[in-house]
C-alpha cells in the first residue's frame, strides 16, 4: 500500500506542475491589458507605467511565471485587480458554497441512481428496464442550463415553493441540486445497471440462489455489495466534475460559489482572481481523483498490485 501511495503521489507532481503552468499561460494569453481595464482608457501613460510596475506586469513573462510558481507554492495567489481583496481569501469565502452544492447534488444523484439501476438490472430487457434506461438517457440529454430555468419557472415562479436564486436555508439548495445532479443521477444509474448485470451473472449468485437466498438478499447483499465499488469510484471522480459543472448552475441560481466567481473574474479580465479560481477548481479535481484512487486501493487490494 505504501509503494502504491508513493507511486500515485509522485505521478501527481508533473500533472500539478503542468496544470499550474497551463493556467498561467492561458490566463496571460487573454487579450486586453489589465492595467487599461483597471485605470480606464483615459489614464496617463505615467500612471499606467506605475501600476504596471506595481503589479509586476512590466517584467518578462518567464520572470512572472517563475514568481507565480513560487507564490503558488507558498499559497499566495495575489490580490484581485478590482476589489484589492486577497484571491485566496475570496476563494475561501466562496468555496464552501460550491462544495455544499456539489455534495447535495451527489447525494441526490446516488439516492435516485442506485435503486433505479438495481431495478433495471433485476428486470433486464423488460419494460421496466427499457423505461428506466430511457429515463436515464433523458436525464443525460437535458442540459443543466435548460433544467435550471424550467425548475425556476415551475417551482419558484408558479408554485412559489423554493426561492428563485441565492443561498439561504435548505430550501435554496433544492433546485440547484436537482439541476446539477440530474445528469449525474443518469450516469450513475446506467453504470449501476451494467455492473449489477455483470454481478448477477457471477457464480456466487448461482450459489446463493441454490442455497435458497431470497431475491432481495441476492440483489442487495450479494450482487449490489460487489457491483457498488465501480459506482462509488465513478461517483467520487464525478465529484470533481460537479465542482466545475457548478459554473453554469451557480450562474443560473446566482449561487455564491467559486464557479460564478470564476466566470465573473474571466469576463472582467481579473487575471489574479481568474487564475486562482481556475487553479483551485483544477487542483480540487486532481486531488479528488487522487483521494478516490487511494480509497479504491484500500477497499480493493487488486488495484495495489497492478
Amino acid at each position: 500500500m505504501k509503494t502504491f501511495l508513493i507511486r500515485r503521489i509522485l505521478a501527481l507532481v508533473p500533472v500539478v506542475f503542468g496544470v499550474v503552468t497551463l493556467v498561467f499561460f492561458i490566463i496571460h494569453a487573454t487579450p486586453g491589458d489589465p492595467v487599461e481595464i483597471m485605470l480606464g482608457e483615459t489614464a496617463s501613460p505615467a500612471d499606467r507605467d506605475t501600476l504596471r510596475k506595481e503589479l509586476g506586469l512590466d517584467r518578462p513573462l518567464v520572470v512572472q511565471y517563475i514568481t507565480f510558481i513560487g507564490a503558488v507554492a507558498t499559497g499566495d495567489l495575489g490580490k484581485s485587480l478590482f476589489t484589492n481583496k486577497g484571491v485566496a481569501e475570496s476563494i475561501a469565502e466562496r468555496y464552501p458554497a460550491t462544495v455544499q452544492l456539489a455534495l447535495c447534488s451527489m447525494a441526490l444523484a446516488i439516492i435516485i441512481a442506485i435503486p433505479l439501476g438495481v431495478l433495471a438490472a433485476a428486470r433486464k430487457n423488460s419494460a421496466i428496464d427499457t423505461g428506466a434506461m430511457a429515463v436515464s438517457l433523458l436525464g443525460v440529454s437535458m442540459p443543466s442550463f435548460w433544467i435550471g430555468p424550467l425548475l425556476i419557472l415551475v417551482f419558484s415562479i408558479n408554485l412559489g415553493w423554493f426561492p428563485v436564486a441565492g443561498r439561504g436555508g435548505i430550501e435554496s439548495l433544492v433546485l440547484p441540486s436537482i439541476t446539477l445532479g440530474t445528469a449525474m443521477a443518469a450516469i450513475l444509474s446506467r453504470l449501476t445497471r451494467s455492473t449489477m448485470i455483470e454481478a448477477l451473472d457471477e457464480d456466487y449468485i448461482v450459489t446463493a440462489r441454490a442455497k435458497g437466498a431470497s431475491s432481495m438478499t441476492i440483489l442487495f447483499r450479494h450482487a449490489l455489495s460487489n457491483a457498488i465499488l465501480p459506482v462509488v469510484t465513478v461517483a467520487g471522480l464525478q465529484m470533481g466534475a460537479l465542482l466545475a459543472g457548478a459554473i453554469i448552475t451557480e450562474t443560473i441560481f446566482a449561487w455564491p460559489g467559486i464557479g460564478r466567481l470564476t466566470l465573473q473574474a474571466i469576463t472582467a479580465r481579473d487575471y489574479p482572481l481568474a487564475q486562482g479560481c481556475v487553479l483551485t477548481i483544477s487542483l480540487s479535481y486532481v486531488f479528488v481523483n487522487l483521494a478516490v484512487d487511494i480509497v479504491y486501493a484500500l477497499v480493493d487490494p487488486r488495484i495495489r498490485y497492478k
Partner: protein
Amino acid sequence: MRYSSFSFFIGVTLTTGFVLVALLAPFIAPYSPYEQDFYNGLAGPGALHLLGQDSLGRDILSRIIYGARVSLLVGFVTVFISATVGVALGAVAGYFGGRIDEVIMRISDIFLSFPGILLAIAVMAVRGPGLENVIVALSIMGWTGYARLARGQALSLREREFVLAAEALGAGPLRIIFLHLLPNIAAPLIVEVTFGVASAIVGEAGLSFLGLGAQPPTASWGSMLSEGRSFLLIAPHLTTFPGIAIMLVVMGINFLGDSLRTALDPKSKKVIRAV
C-alpha cells in the same frame, strides 16, 4: 420492445430528422431567422408563429430550425478535429510506447485535470467569443478521450500476429498505424464519436448560454435559452422550445450511440445471446 431496438429506432429517427432539418432549413423555415417584428415582441405561440416570437419579434421556430445548423456544424466539426488529433496521437503513443508514450500521455493527463467546461471557458476567454473559437475550445477539450481510446487499442494490438507479420514484411510505422491499427479501432471509435457529437452540441449551447459562444444575431439554441432566461416570467416559451430542441437532438444521438455500442461490443452481444 428490447432496449437496444428501441434506442436504435429513436436514435436514428431523431438524428436523421435533425440532420434533415439543418440541411433543409432555408426551405422549411417559415420566416427568416433575422426578420424582426417589434410590434409583436415576446408574442406567445399562435397560428402565424407556431412557437411564438422572441423579444425582437423574430420567429422562434425559424430560429430553432436555423439553430440546428449551428449545433450540428459545431458538433460534427469539433468531433472531426478532436478525433483526428486524438486518434493520431493515441495511436502513435500506443504503437511506439516508451518516451513518446510517456510525453503524450502526461500532456493528456494535464488536459484531463481540467474539468471540460472550465478549460473551454478559459480558452474562450483567451480567443474571444464566436463559433470558430467554440470549435477550437471544444476540440482542445475533447481530444484526450480519443487519444486514450486509440492508445489502449494500439497497445493491445501491436503485439498481435497481423501487426508482427506486417513488420516482418518491412511495413513502416505509418503504414502499420494507418492500415493495420486504425481499422481495428473503428468499432469503439464510432461509438465514442457519436457520444462526442452530443457532448459538443451541449458544450456549444452551454458556452453560448454563458455569452461566450455564438454571438447575436446568429440563431443558436444556447444563446436563445440565455435570452429566454431574462423573460422567464412573461414569456416562458423563449426558454422552453430551444431547450426541447437541444434535449431531442442530444437524446437522439445518445440513443444512437447506445445502440451502436450494444451492436459493436462483442461482450454485450454475448450477454444478449445468453438471455
